C-alpha cells in the first residue's frame, strides 16, 4: 500500500500515512517553537508593520493571455510581488517598517505607493488594468481560473471533493442567487492585510483575540466585494462568506448516509467531545468558536485540520498558511507576526492607510486599557452583520461598564473611532491619520455601497457597465 496506506487516527477519522507524517512533523515543530519562545521577545518600543495587498489584472483577454500578462508583471517586479491562487492575481508586499521611528509612517506609505505604481506601470505596458476590489466581478464563480501550482490544485480540489453534496452553496440576497460551490472561488477574492510584529508569543495571542473583535467594525464601513459574475449579491462584502461556504466540509450528522441502520450505529459509537473544548468541528475560515487561550492553543487548532499538502519539513508553515482566520499569527525567523486579513482591498491606498491606522490605534487602545473582549458569539453576529449589511444594521459594542450593548452601527462606531484615535495619540501617530479620507469613507458609504449606487438602476449588467462604474470609482485603474 506504500505511502497511501490508510491508518486510523485517535479521533477515528481515516488519516493517510502522509497526513500522519505531516502531523508528527507539525507536533515536533510546534514543540520546538514553544520551547524557543524567548527568541520572539522584543524589548525595544518599536511598532513594526508590513502590508500585503492583493490586486487583480483585468482585460478582455483569454484566461491564458491574462496569466501570461500577470506573470510578466510579476517578473517586472519580482522583489516585492508574488502569485496567489487566482490566475490573474498579484500580491504586493512591503518590508516591515517601524512606524514609531522617524518618518516611519511616511516611509511605509511611500514604499507601498511606489510598489503599487511600479506594478501599475507594468500593467499599462502589458495593456491590462488593475482591479482594486475584494471580489473580481468579471470571472466565473465556478471553475475560476487558478494559478498553475500544485498547492493551488490540491487544496481547492480537496475541499471540492469533501464538501457535503447537500450543502447549499447559493448565496445572495438579490433576485438571483449565485452558486459559489467551487473552492477555487477564492481566486476571485483580494484582501488588504496588515502585519504587526508582536513583542512575544503571549502578545501575539492577545493581539489576535483583540483583532478578531475589532475587525468587524473595520469591515462595516469598508465592504468592497458585492458583485460576483456581474451580478449584485446584495451582500456588502461577500468575500469571506464565499470562502467559508465553499470550504465547509463539516458535517454534524452525515447526510450522505441514507441507510438509517448505519446512521444509528455510528451515532451510538459517537464519542466525539463537544465542540469548542478541543477545537472539534471547526471551520478553517473566519472566526474560531472561542478565543485562543495561548499560542499553544492557537497552534493546536491550526493542527486540527487536514494538511492536504505533503512537505514534512514545512508542516508548521503549511498549517499556518492554510489558517484562513480573520486574524492569524505567522512566524518568520524570530518574529511572531499578527496578520489582519478581514478587510477587502480598498479602491485607494489612502483608504487602506486609514484602515490600517484605525486598526492599529484601536488595537493599541484595547491592549493598553486591557479592555474586556465581547463574547465570541456576539463577535460572530457583528462580523456577519458587517459583511451582509455594512452599517445598515445595529452592531454590538462594549459600554462603559464593559457590558455588550447593541447600538445603531454608525452611533457605536463613533466611540470606536474615538478609542482608535486615543490609541493613535498614545502612539504619537494621530497626525498621520487623514481625517478627510476617514470622513469621506463614513459619509459616502463603503466602496460596495458606492458601486451599488452607480450600478443599481440597471437590471442586467454588462461587462462595459461594470468596467465603467469600477473605473469611475478607482476600483479599476488603467
Amino acid at each position, binding site marked *: 500500500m506504500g505511502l497511501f496506506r490508510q491508518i486510523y487516527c485517535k479521533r477515528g477519522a481515516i488519516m493517510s500515512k502522509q497526513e500522519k507524517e505531516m502531523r508528527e512533523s507539525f507536533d515536533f515543530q510546534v514543540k520546538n517553537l514553544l520551547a524557543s519562545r524567548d527568541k520572539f521577545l522584543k524589548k525595544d518600543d518599536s511598532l513594526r508593520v508590513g502590508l500585503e495587498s492583493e490586486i487583480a489584472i483585468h482585460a478582455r483577454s483569454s484566461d491564458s493571455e491574462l496569466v501570461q500578462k500577470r506573470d510578466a508583471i510579476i517578473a517586472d517586479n519580482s522583489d516585492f510581488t508574488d502569485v496567489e491562487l487566482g490566475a490573474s492575481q498579484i500580491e504586493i508586499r512591503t518590508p516591515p517598517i517601524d512606524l514609531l521611528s522617524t518618518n516611519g509612517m511616511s516611509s511605509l506609505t511611500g514604499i507601498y505607493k511606489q510598489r503599487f505604481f511600479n506594478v501599475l506601470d507594468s500593467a499599462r505596458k502589458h495593456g491590462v488594468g488593475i482591479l482594486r476590489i475584494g471580489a473580481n466581478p468579471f470571472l466565473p464563480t465556478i471553475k475560476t481560473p487558478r494559478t498553475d501550482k500544485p498547492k493551488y490544485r490540491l487544496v481547492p480540489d480537496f475541499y471540492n471533493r469533501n464538501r*457535503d*453534496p*447537500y*450543502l*447549499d452553496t*447559493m*448565496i*445572495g*440576497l438579490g433576485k438571483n*442567487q449565485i452558486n459559489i460551490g467551487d473552492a477555487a472561488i477564492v481566486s476571485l477574492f483580494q484582501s488588504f492585510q496588515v502585519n504587526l510584529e508582536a513583542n512575544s508569543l503571549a502578545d501575539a495571542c492577545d493581539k489576535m483575540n483583540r483583532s478578531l473583535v475589532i475587525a468587524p467594525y473595520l469591515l462595516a464601513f469598508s465592504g468592497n466585494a458585492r458583485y460576483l459574475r456581474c451580478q449584485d449579491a446584495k*451582500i456588502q462584502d461577500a468575500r469571506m*462568506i464565499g470562502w467559508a*461556504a465553499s470550504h465547509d466540509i*463539516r*458535517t*454534524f*450528522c452525515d*447526510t450522505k448516509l*441514507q441507510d*438509517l441502520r448505519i*446512521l*444509528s450505529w455510528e*451515532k451510538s459509537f459517537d464519542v466525539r467531545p463537544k*465542540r469548542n473544548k478541543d477545537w472539534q*468541528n471547526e*471551520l478553517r475560515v473566519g472566526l474560531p468558536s472561542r478565543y485562543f487561550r495561548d499560542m499553544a492553543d492557537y497552534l493546536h487548532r491550526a493542527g486540527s485540520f487536514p494538511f492536504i499538502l505533503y512537505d514534512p519539513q514545512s508542516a508548521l508553515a503549511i498549517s499556518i498558511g492554510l489558517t484562513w482566520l480573520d486574524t492569524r499569527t505567522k512566524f518568520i525567523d524570530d518574529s511572531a507576526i499578527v496578520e489582519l486579513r478581514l478587510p477587502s482591498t480598498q479602491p485607494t491606498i489612502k483608504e487602506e492607510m486609514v484602515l490600517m491606522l484605525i486598526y492599529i490605534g484601536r488595537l493599541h487602545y484595547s491592549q493598553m486599557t486591557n479592555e474586556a473582549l465581547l*463574547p465570541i*458569539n*456576539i463577535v*460572530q*453576529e457583528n462580523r*456577519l*452583520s458587517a*459583511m*451582509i449589511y455594512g452599517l445598515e444594521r445595529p452592531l*454590538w459594542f462594549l459600554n462603559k461598564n464593559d457590558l*455588550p450593548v*447593541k447600538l445603531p452601527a454608525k452611533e457605536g462606531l463613533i466611540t470606536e473611532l474615538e478609542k482608535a484615535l486615543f490609541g493613535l495619540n498614545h502612539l504619537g501617530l494621530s497626525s498621520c491619520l487623514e481625517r478627510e479620507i476617514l470622513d469621506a469613507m463614513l459619509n459616502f458609504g463603503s466602496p460596495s455601497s458606492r458601486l451599488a449606487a452607480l450600478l443599481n438602476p440597471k437590471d442586467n449588467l454588462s461587462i462595459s457597465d461594470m468596467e465603467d462604474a469600477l473605473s469611475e470609482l478607482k476600483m479599476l485603474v488603467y
Partner: protein
Amino acid sequence: MNENFKDFLSKFSFRPEMAGFIGIEREQFLIVAGGLDGGQYASRAQGFLSMINSSKWTYELSACQVESRTNPHKDLSAIKLEILENENCGNQAAFKLGLRLDNIEVASRNMPFTVYPDFRYLEIAKTIPQDRLEAACRVTGTHIHIGVRDISHAIEVNNLLVPHLNIFCSLGDHSNSERLRLYRTMAKNFEVARAEEFADNPRNCWKLIRISIHGTVELRMFGVTDNVDEILEWVSFVRSIVKGAL
C-alpha cells in the same frame, strides 16, 4: 370549489413572493443561571418576553419555554445572522433576569409543568391528560418553514418531503429519539392527523410535516442544538430535497 374548502384555504396566508424562502423557529428552555436554584427550570417566559420586548420572540405552552423566529430568507448567511441576533439578544435578556437560555431537547421529568397564561394554551391544558401535558412541556425543537406559493405548491413540496421523514427525524435527533416519543404522546394522531381535528384551526395539526397557516410547509421533527451551523445543515439538506419544486 366547495365553500367549506374555500373557508379552510382562507386560513392559510400564502405569499407567492416568498416561495422558497426559509424561516426558522427555535424553542429554548429558560434556566436559572446561578445561586441556590441554579440549573432549575424557570417558569418565567412572561418576564422574559417583557424584558426582550421583541416581535421575534413568543411563548409556548410551557411557561419554562420561549420561541424565537427569523424573518424569511433564501440566503443561508442571512438566516444565520438572524438566528445569531435572536440568540445574542435572548441571552442578554435572560442574563438581566438571572436566567440563561438552554438548548435541551428533552427536559427532566421534575420540571415545573406551569402553562403559559394564554387562553388557547390554558384551554388545551384543561382538556388533555397529565401525561400529554407533561410530554408537551418537556420537549423543544427547531422548526423549519419553507415558503410556498399556494396550496398546490404546498402539497407538491409536502409530498417531496414526506418520503424522507425518517432521515429528517434521525438527523435532528439528539435525545436518542426520546423527544419524538414524547411528541407522539403529546400529539396522539401524530402519524396521520384526522381532518376533523384541525379543520377549524390548522394550528391543531401536529404532523411532523405540515402546511402551516403562515403559508409555509413546516418541518417539526428537528431537535435543538447549540450550534447554529447545524441548523443550517438541516436547512441545506431539506432544501436539496425540494430544490426541483422551488
